[in-house]
């Protein structure tokens, strides 16, 4: 049941993004920024956290989840360190995700080359 929920919620978020890509002139980079900002905003409004608890990976894996994590990190750091936490928290909380993306894609580049689309 957990898997089904994650699959449906994650799929629904991706479907919304596909509509944005097909029906608007937004470039992929913009769409990604919109997702991150939406996640951060919903996190700040206290909506994303309960949603993520319910949907699990379906809410955590898409970029909105990354936005939520950024907000969470900043909030925790501000609570602990005060003003300086604004600059610190986002990076601390997202470090694992960003490093993993960089390292694993670099490793993948050792073994795979880009190919022609057909």
């Amino acid at each position, binding site marked *: 049941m957990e898997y089904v929920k994650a699959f449906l919620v994650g799929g629904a978020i991706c479907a919304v993004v596909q509509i944005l890509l097909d029906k608007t002139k937004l470039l992929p980079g913009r769409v990604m920024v919109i997702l991150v900002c939406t996640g951060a905003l919903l996190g700040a409004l206290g909506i994303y956290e309960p949603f993520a608890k319910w949907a699990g990976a379906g809410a955590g894996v898409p970029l909105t989840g990354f936005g939520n994590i950024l907000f969470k990190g900043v909030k925790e750091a501000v609570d602990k360190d005060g003003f300086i936490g604004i600059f610190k928290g986002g990076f601390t909380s997202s470090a694992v995700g960003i490093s993993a993306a960089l390292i694993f894609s670099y490793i993948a580049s050792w073994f795979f080359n880009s190919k*022609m*689309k057909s």
Partner: protein
Amino acid sequence: MAENGANGSKMVGKQSIFFKDPPYIVASASIAGKKEGEGPMGSLFDLVQMDPMLGKNTWEEAESELMKEAAQTALQKAGLKNTDIRYLIGGDLLGQLIATSFGIAELEIPILGIYGACSTMGEAMSIGAMLVDGGYADKVMAITSSHFAGAEKQFRFPLDYGNQRPYSASWTVTGSGAVIISKQKNQNSSEPGVIIKGITTGKIVDYGLKDSMNMGAAMAPAAYDTIKQNFQDLGVDPNYYDKIITGDLGYVGKNILIDLLKENNYDISNIHMDCGIEIFNEDDQDTHSGGSGCGCSAITFASYILKQLKERSWKRVLFLPTGALLSQVSFNEGKTVPGIAHAVIVEAE
């Protein structure tokens, strides 16, 4: 109809030329990629390269190799050596024309590098014909190339990024086309001669479109402008031509072009052809909006169009490759996509 202007001048109207001794197209070469080879014109190309890398390490090197093969094939078909060619006029889509520079370096032919985006073949043939008719060269080669993967990297997103292509986007043709333009007809050939009778050089036309994924719409007004100017300069109407052939307007651009000309009471809907539409099979090949790129019009001309002229199926065509003069920088800075189209009047003797 205007033949040569006053006092035997070669200048006709505002933007056109009629050559005094129209130069001959004595040989052509078309090297195509796998997808192009699988298209409706596949059997007409001189060579279809199944390996998109052509055994090289980068897309850019692969494109250079395509161009080298096109130049060598054209020389071979004409029975000429590299030293017989006075000038190469050519270019490609990559920054600073690196496909050309690295591709033809070892041929050791003097070169004029040009950038006309996808209109490059029209521009190269125009300049080449002027050099030959002007007596500055007896044989020149016009050449250009494009490669799908290199162009995606240069103008859109590198393939590694895995971007989705919108439906209005065209598919950059992987291929290189070359023609040899000569003062004299090829004596060894029994085929009817094909001459470049004249040209109409296009100006930049910008209707303010900003979508780099929909370049057919950005280029159609430029094609319209050049065709209309050609009619006015020569004092002719669409009946003068058996075919009017644009480079890579695609399905979207084709309709815009025909509508724009209709507003001026010119109906070309029966004789118009677009290389971008013809080169791929719309139903099977999933290119979205047809083919594009310098190679698109170049290999279509070097194979299909020249064949029709030699067989006299068409007696006179207006060949006008169309280009979108944007760069990655101008696009990122939110500038519009300026269009251009250079027309060449090609006749079967």
